């Protein structure tokens, strides 16, 4: 056992330092320690009552941990309670920093706490210390088979290691509700249910240390994210998009031997050391949630949401045994109004720092806050120290790129899930730039299309093909014109016909004659217009196919015109002679038939020409 020897060494060292000079006059009148090991994180809460027994005033308080714990210290917060009485205690956080003390051996980590005000002689102060340690629950044995339960070991000291003398101290360890293999039995050790109690010990000298080891079963998921990249992208169109990339590993006892699916599915004690689920507690109103990895979507996840929170239960593709790892990505959108606020002409994003996963230890957390393109004067405030840098990220339709604030922190525990603020300046005009880009892109596209169809891009303007094409276009235009005129003529014919009908209804010969006169002149004009067009068609070589048809059309139209005129005259004459309607009809019957036939022919011709 590696650690026992370390402990022994430590103990010897501690005894050695016991003889070192008294560091301060402070005395801890009462120390209560509670260690919670129900999850993979050992969470230590201490209440320290500090009394200054010396004469000098003290403004610094020293916290010490054995090195093997101090190295795994993920989170440390010291606060002191203000106000008297238990009812209205408000905790004030104190600043803590790692320190180096002369005369303290290497096996002890030292942190110094700046006290809110100097303690003068006889003053007392109550400090609340919360510390979270990762990796201190050592799996033992280190390799287990699928059937075995997961046993872990905790090493601590029954007595509080401190550079100050302690008058009274007690320790309680909260164990998970499962088997307890063994624990160090000292005087006054009591096991009450799942709570293991040591002490109280009275009047301990400085640097007291008495190692204890607790060996017990842990059912907690030892899920550790070796690396977690959280990308928080702010869009001023109303969305904060969060994308989280997890590299998860099970840091518990490693699986040895076979993995048997049969046992895992069938027999309950098998595979208890593995975890199948991870629970993420997302902010309320999270939407568009997805869960995928390098090779695609993972369909095993469940979501529950209410107004307070959104719970996402995700199941990796395979159960994770000790030493197994997996990688996945989850993403979700959040409404912008819940997270983005304005203050003093600046905007700030107020968002949680850590991972939303319950009881997840993150060894390396990288938070990238992607701000909209054109953001300026960026600053970040965080409740604890993080490494900061800036990058540029290119996303859809970006030209200058989006500024990215990168925050890095190692060894992150859920206690770090505190809000950070990213301040920046952004003008709303910039919002329009991307739609405008799209609009102008399409505009340019259409303009080029228009130019392309309108402009003449042929290289040789004198080539035969080019000239023939030009000529052909001209011919087509002429034919079109001829058609137009013919249609006009037909329309005039219709007018004439309608005048005849009016005549039969009203018997008004004068209007009918007037109509006749006007159509006459109109038709004359039209036929005049037709002449040059026809000569052009006849002269052009490429129109040799069309021109006979056009000619035919025109002659047919002329014929129709004549017939119509004849019919008109007959009818009008008939009315003038006051002949009976029946008589007139008889007289024009043959003409009428011809007119219809001609009309039909003309329409056929028109259609034929149309199809060329």
């Amino acid at each position, binding site marked *: 056992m590696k650690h026992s020897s370390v402990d022994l060494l430590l103990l010897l060292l501690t005894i050695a330092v016991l003889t070192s000079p008294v560091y301060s006059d402070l005395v801890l009148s009462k120390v209560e320690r509670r260690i919670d090991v129900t999850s993979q994180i050992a969470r230590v809460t201490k209440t320290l009552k500090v009394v200054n027994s010396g004469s000098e005033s003290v403004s610094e308080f020293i916290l010490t941990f054995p090195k093997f714990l101090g190295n795994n210290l993920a989170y440390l917060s010291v606060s002191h309670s203000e106000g008297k009485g238990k009812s209205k205690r408000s905790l004030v956080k104190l600043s803590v920093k790692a320190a180096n003390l002369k005369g303290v051996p290497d096996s002890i980590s030292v942190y110094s706490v700046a006290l809110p005000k100097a303690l003068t002689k006889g003053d007392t102060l109550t400090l609340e210390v919360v510390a979270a340690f990762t990796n201190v629950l050592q799996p033992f044995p280190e390799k287990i088979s699928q059937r075995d339960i997961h046993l872990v070991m905790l090493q601590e000291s029954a007595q509080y290691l401190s550079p100050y003398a302690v008058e009274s101290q007690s320790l309680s360890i909260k164990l998970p509700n499962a088997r307890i293999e063994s624990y160090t039995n000292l005087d006054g050790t009591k096991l009450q249910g799942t709570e293991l109690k040591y002490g109280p010990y009275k009047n301990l000298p400085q640097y007291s240390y008495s190692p204890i080891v607790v060996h017990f079963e842990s059912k907690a998921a030892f899920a550790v994210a070796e690396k977690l990249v959280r990308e928080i992208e702010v869009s001023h169109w109303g969305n904060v998009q969060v994308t989280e990339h997890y590299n998860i590993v099970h840091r518990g006892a490693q699986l040895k*031997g076979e993995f048997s699916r049969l046992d895992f599915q069938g027999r309950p004690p098998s595979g208890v050391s593995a975890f199948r689920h991870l629970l993420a507690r997302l902010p309320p109103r999270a939407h568009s949630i997805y869960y995928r990895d390098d090779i695609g979507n993972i369909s095993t996840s469940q979501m529950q949401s209410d107004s307070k929170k959104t719970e996402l239960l995700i199941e990796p*593709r395979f159960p994770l045994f000790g030493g197994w790892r997996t990688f996945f990505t989850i993403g979700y959108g959040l409404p912008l109004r819940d997270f983005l606020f304005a203050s003093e002409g600046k905007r700030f994003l107020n968002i949680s720092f850590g991972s939303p996963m319950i009881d997840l230890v993150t060894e390396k957390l990288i938070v990238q806050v992607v701000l909209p393109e054109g953001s300026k004067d960026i600053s970040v405030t965080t409740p604890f120290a993080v490494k900061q840098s800036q990058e540029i990220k290119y996303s859809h339709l970006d*030209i200058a790129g989006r500024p990215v604030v990168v925050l890095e922190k190692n060894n992150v525990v859920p206690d770090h899930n505190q809000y950070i603020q990213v301040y920046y300046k952004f003008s709303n005009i910039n919002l329009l730039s991307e739609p405008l880009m799209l609009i102008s892109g399409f505009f340019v596209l259409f303009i080029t299309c228009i130019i392309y169809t309108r402009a003449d891009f042929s290289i040789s303007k004198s080539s035969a093909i080019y000239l023939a094409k030009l000529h052909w276009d001209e011919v087509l235009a002429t034919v079109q014109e001829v058609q137009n005129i013919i249609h006009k003529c037909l329309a005039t014919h219709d007018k004439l016909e309608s005048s005849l009908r009016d005549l039969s209804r009203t018997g008004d010969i004068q209007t009918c004659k007037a109509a006749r006169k006007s159509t006459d002149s109109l038709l004359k004009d039209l036929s005049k217009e037709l002449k040059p067009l026809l000569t052009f068609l006849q002269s052009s070589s490429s129109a040799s196919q069309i021109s006979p048809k056009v000619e035919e059309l025109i002659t047919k139209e002329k014929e129709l015109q004549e017939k119509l005129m004849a019919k008109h005259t007959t009818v009008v004459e008939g009315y003038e002679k006051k002949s009976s309607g029946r008589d007139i009809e008889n007289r024009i019957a043959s003409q009428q038939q011809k007119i219809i036939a001609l009309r039909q022919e003309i329409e056929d011709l028109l259609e034929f020409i149309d199809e060329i």
Partner: protein
Amino acid sequence: MAGKQDSPNSDLLNSFSFKSLKLKTKQQELLIRVSILGLVYILAFIARLFSVLRYESMIHEFDPYFNYRTTLFLTEKGFYEFWNWFDSESWYPLGRIIGGTLYPGLMVTAALLYWTLRFLRFFVHIREVCVLTAPFFASNTTIVAYFFGKEIWDTGAGLVAAALIAICPGYISRSVAGSYDNEAVAIFALLLTFYLFVKAVNTGSLAWALGSAFGYFYMVSAWGGYVFIINLVPLYVLVLLITGRYSMRLYVAYNCMYILGMLLAMQIRFVGFQHVQSGEHMGAMGVFLLMQVFYFLDWVKYQLNDTKLFQTFLKITVTSAVLVGGIALGVGTASGYISPWTGRFYSLLDPTYAKDHIPIIASVSEHQPTAWSSFMFDYHILLFLFPAGLYFCFKRLSDATIFIVMYGLTSLYFAGVMVRLILVATPAVCLISAIAVSATVKNLTSLLRTKQKVPQAGSTKGAGSSKSSSKVSLDQSQPFQKNGAIALLVGVFYLLSRYAIHCTWVTSEAYSSPSIVLAARGAHGNRIIFDDYREAYYWLRQNTPTDAKIMSWWDYGYQITAMGNRTVIVDNNTWNNTHIATVGRAMSSYEDEAYDIMRSLDVNYVLVVFGGVTGYSSDDINKFLWMVRIGGGVYPVIKEPDYLVNGEFRVDKGASPKMLNCLMYKLCYYRFGELVTEYGKPSGYDRARGVEIGNKDIKLEHLEEAYTTSNWIVRIYRVKPPTNRL
């Protein structure tokens, strides 16, 4: 286009405005045509998105995973790295020269699309580009089909062809979103080459022939199916020569296309000098030489006026040309300069060839001869329209229609030989069917139109006229004809709508499954997803050493390298038959013999696919006989009869002892005997084969179970290190 509604009682004003609209018929027609094409373009794209909707945006099946992996490599490392890529992750310990053994067209296309999109500031993921490449090219194919149809018939046929090919299941089966395979771009390239060549033959223009050569180059870079082009085009030229349709246009088109196409094709490393050295390409060269002889003779005939002299000259020239050609071919083949036809080519000409000689080709399901039902499934009404189209083509025979007829008939033959070649026949079938549809509809509507004139003209005569009775008697046959035409038109549109419905159904139900993710319906109609493949591959990716070598049957090789990111012994690029046979031998040997083989190949993990729990039938036990055959083909110690009982393949108690104790059996059924799969059945009941297994007490000596997926579909075993000998 039948936009001429008849309104017998329309007044003059109405008919006048109608006429004035008609003045712009040209533009109207253009507008309708462009919008139809636009809609067809979009339709072709979105019909292929069913797979994304039903599953997700992912790469499908087997080969696409390799293509995806290489595309990823290309976009990350650049073209030169890609071209010189030696992949040590596959075919361990041989490796594979990727750059020299693939058709890079697809990857380069996708990478270019990707880079273009990035240049336009669309930062998409390469996976999305790969997934959507096939639908995009299918859309482009519809445009080519339109122009092709226009070239061989008229614009109407072009439009119908575009619409038919947009949703034809035969094409959709290989071009749904995610089906990132060579065929996705190759069909586009194939049709483009053919279209440009026909255009070149029709116009005799060098420019079109050049375009066709480039189309051919693209096709060569994309798919091995280019051999079809290089044989069909000479065959077509030959037919034109024989039928006396030789022209200068043909001469220009073929020579330019062949020479330039050949030179360009040689730039593809995988193809190299095959155009001058391989038997499959000799036909094209022969026709090229024949063409020169023909031209020469033509010239001589022009110079000589004496026909008798010319006849003798013709005899001498033709005989000597054929002799010289024959001798050259014989010498080339004998000296080994010209390689003989490959097995794949033989198996096309003789469908039974592969079964006897190359089990590895015969073992692939898509290389099986096509069943009638799959023709019906993939073509639906096109199967009936195709002969009708052929009739129309023969009725209006031209250079272009001869081409499409030849393309249709040859490709349909190949489609009958191999299931996957239905794809090649699809464009031809669509085009010829489009001719049938378009010609029929056109004839019918023109019949209807002439009829419409008469009542219209009658109405212009005005009210109160009863004289038209004589006219009615004149056109007595017409009403009946008109009704018949209407009935036929309705019938055509009914058929076409059935076709559309069938295509949509087939696409959504049959062709959109990625086959990586299996979906089934539960007892309550809910959808159950079996995602075991990815579960296993992802487990390999995350929980095995990065240099682990995985042995599995070759079907899963590409997927393991792409998704599991681990080295495999064999994969889907079946280039080394011996290596595959070694794996087949290991799978079909006893465990200790297999252990020696696996040790010699440095195998760390063995992966098998097993469907006994879920009833998934395409698993390794059902493929096992192929492993035996392929293994036995190289290693005679493996004998197929050892695994059969009275010629029957079984896994229950009656199975042969060798079968019950071979590695594959042990790995598939390890501890399966303790599992109750179905209520009311004994433990160890194999649901895929419906029997209780014969060997329930399987002990593994040299391997141990490393992982089995939640539905037992993929089982992975770890090869134990040898025990210490003290």
